[in-house]
């Protein structure tokens, strides 16, 4: 896979024009239609159990934070509250964005808007960005969500492990969009018909944050900001440490999620925070399957997929050296082994258009 002179990750560069992956046939591990239909079914009961527990934990730890505010206990309690708020919301923003957890649409939409605010993401811009990410996963010049463009910046990676720079950028984006400004890259995947509600959502988010800021000034206390707004900054780190495993170090420009995504086993608590996104090959291959059915989908197709990593640590043990090596050798990537008898990866050669 040669890295050509025109290799350019921007969504408005030559590779953006060259890709034809939007209409490409992506590989899907074979599974009986009847079984996939069962797994695609949504359940308000299962979703409400998960989302109700999560929201209950956010509220309970939030109340505890209020109770211990001003004591030394505030710091550890804030750490726990922040993880439920920031990391828990980020994975639930993602799930409800797909519209898969709840059978009842308004419940999906209500949680989507709540989780979007809690993770400081514009609900409309991110819905369309993520749509493109699923159409053209890790396709250079087309996927707006490639976290590790080659050669990667290790400095950015280390800083972003705590997710603080990315969230800060998101806050800046919120202000820019609230003033009605979209970049050319954003315009490349966001239809014009969506622009008014995109602007309105950023304005609504800013208004809520301003009210929280006003409450902090009025009360002469940081507490309101530690409850709403700041937890996205100090609590999203766990989600980001987990989500970094999704595609880092793996192949680019290949229409096969077994080659560009990573599935690994994870303890139940982290899976709760992360909404089972450790089953990332399965999620990309069958995005209509709700998070609570991903373990079952994994069992259904694992014989056709590379072996799942044993743990989060196992992912990092492979990923860190690969990303380090990509600094000097951008052609390097991790080649995932397929089991005997697995379906072959479709071949695809990315067309290249010379820079203008």
């Amino acid at each position, binding site marked *: 896979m040669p890295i050509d002179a025109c290799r350019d990750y921007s969504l408005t560069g030559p590779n953006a024009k060259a890709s034809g992956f939007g209409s490409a046939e992506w590989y899907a591990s074979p599974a009986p239609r009847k079984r996939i239909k069962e797994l695609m079914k*949504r359940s308000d009961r299962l979703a409400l159990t998960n989302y109700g527990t999560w929201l209950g934990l956010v509220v309970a730890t939030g109340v505890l934070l209020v109770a211990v505010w001003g004591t030394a206990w505030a710091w550890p309690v804030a750490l726990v509250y922040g993880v439920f708020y920031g990391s828990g919301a980020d994975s639930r923003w993602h799930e409800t964005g797909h519209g898969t957890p709840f059978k009842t649409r308004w419940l999906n939409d209500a949680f989507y808007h709540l989780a979007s605010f809690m993770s400081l993401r514009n609900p409309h811009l991110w819905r369309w960005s993520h749509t493109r990410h699923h159409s053209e996963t890790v396709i250079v010049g087309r996927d707006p969500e490639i976290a590790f463009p080659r050669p990667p910046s290790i400095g950015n990676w280390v800083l972003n492990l705590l997710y603080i720079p990315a969230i800060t950028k998101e806050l800046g984006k919120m202000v820019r969009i609230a003033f009605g400004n979209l970049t050319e890259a954003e315009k490349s995947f966001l239809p014009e018909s969506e622009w008014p509600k995109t602007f309105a959502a950023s304005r609504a988010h800013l208004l809520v944050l301003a009210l929280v800021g006003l409450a902090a000034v009025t009360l002469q206390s940081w507490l309101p900001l530690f409850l709403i707004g700041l937890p996205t900054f100090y609590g999203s780190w766990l989600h980001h440490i987990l989500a970094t495993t999704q595609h880092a170090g793996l192949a680019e420009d290949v229409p096969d999620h077994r080659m560009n995504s990573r599935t690994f086993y994870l303890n139940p608590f982290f899976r709760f925070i992360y909404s089972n996104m450790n089953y990332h090959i399965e999620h990309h291959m069958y995005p209509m399957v709700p998070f609570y059915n991903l373990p079952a989908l994994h069992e259904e197709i694992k014989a056709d997929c590379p072996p799942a990593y044993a743990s989060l640590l196992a992912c990092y043990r492979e990923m860190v050296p690969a990303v380090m090596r990509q600094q000097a050798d951008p052609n390097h990537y991790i080649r995932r082994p397929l089991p005997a008898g697995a379906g072959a990866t479709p071949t695809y050669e990315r067309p290249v258009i010379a820079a203008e």
Partner: protein
Amino acid sequence: MPNWVRACGANDVEAEDLVRFDHGDRTFAVYRSPDDEYFCTEGLCTHEQVHLADGLVMDYEIECPKHNATFDYRTGEAKRAPACVNLATYPVKIENGSVWIEI
């Protein structure tokens, strides 16, 4: 002049499900609703040309398997982003245990 084409057997489609039907260079989706009515739309999602036959029917809606765009398959109306364009729909009749569509 109406051009009725046999798409499938009426029992080839389960209730609250759909099947794909290809005719010439065109592709269609034939639905059976929860109350055993039959409907037909074009077979590809208007968002990114993905076959709807791999999607999920819930009541009177079909959800695209790729990005979860949703349509009312009775009218073709796009109900959920990223679909912004309605699906074309086609008349359906049941005769002698077969589903016929007018194309």
